[in-house]
């Protein structure tokens, strides 16, 4: 049984999405999973999407430039600019949507990510706060994520229906 903590809340008063997740692993390993591209790419994209990090320079002022790839091959590019790093404790980035040539899409909302790591009795808790400029931005991202997830769900559903029919 998986009884590790997982909370997901939207705080409308601070335009923030708050996520708390506990992992059954020691802190250095979880820290690596969030900060090393070769591990990140194995879990960052929810299946059936895949993640591909084109470059990542994990230093203050550095950048991760990556794509989320949908099953039909379409690539959605994103940028994370690292603004603060306290090793094994906290790091922050600003998130942008981009095109394949690493140009930031200024029409889509950016967001500020703040990740805190702490360990207790061999379990590591990660608290993520994603702060947006306006509530409308959250709505937009939820709708976009919603659309993405919705399309995925539709495909799963279609698969399920096919299996049932055959």
């Amino acid at each position, binding site marked *: 049984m998986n009884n590790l903590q997982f909370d997901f809340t939207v705080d409308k008063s601070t335009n923030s999405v708050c996520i708390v*997740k506990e992992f059954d692993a020691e802190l250095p390993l979880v820290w690596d*999973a969030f900060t090393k591209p070769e591990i990140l790419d194995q879990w960052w994209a929810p299946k059936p999407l895949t993640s591909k990090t084109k470059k990542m320079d994990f230093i203050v002022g550095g950048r991760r430039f990556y794509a989320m790839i949908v099953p039909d091959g379409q690539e959605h590019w994103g940028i994370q600019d690292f603004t603060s790093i306290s090793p094994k404790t906290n790091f922050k980035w600003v998130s942008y949507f981009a095109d394949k040539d690493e140009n930031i899409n200024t029409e889509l909302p950016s967001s500020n990510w703040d990740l805190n790591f702490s360990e207790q009795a061999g379990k590591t808790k990660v608290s993520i706060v994603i702060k947006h400029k306006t509530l409308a931005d959250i709505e937009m991202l939820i709708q976009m994520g*919603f*659309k993405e997830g919705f399309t995925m*769900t539709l495909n799963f559903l279609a698969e399920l229906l096919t299996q049932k029919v055959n």
Partner: protein
Amino acid sequence: MRIYLQPIGFINANRQMRRDIFQAIADPTRRAIIVLIALQAMTPNAIADNFNTTRQAVSKHLRILTECEIVKQEQKGREIFYSLEIDKMKEIDKWVEQFRNIWETKFNQLDNLLSTIKSKKNEQFAI
């Protein structure tokens, strides 16, 4: 204005349940139409250009989507534009809780990955 766009069966919708949102997504062409108009309002002709079926077939799908109240129509000049009724779509959102699920999926993947890495490390120590 909106009230005029509601299908006639709307008033009895709760009792009759003639069309619901899951009927809207039951057909692959309708799913494709939903994805098409999610980002921008489109005319029936522009929508039909994306499919190999007849315009009549596309307009039949649009009628069903309208009856499911998942799309709304807006008259601009002589053209009718169809767009997605996001609030209605949220009914499915509630059903699947997908936004949370995306994170849940990601974290499940990470949980599995961490346990794989951990057991590999233990193997190394055992040797």
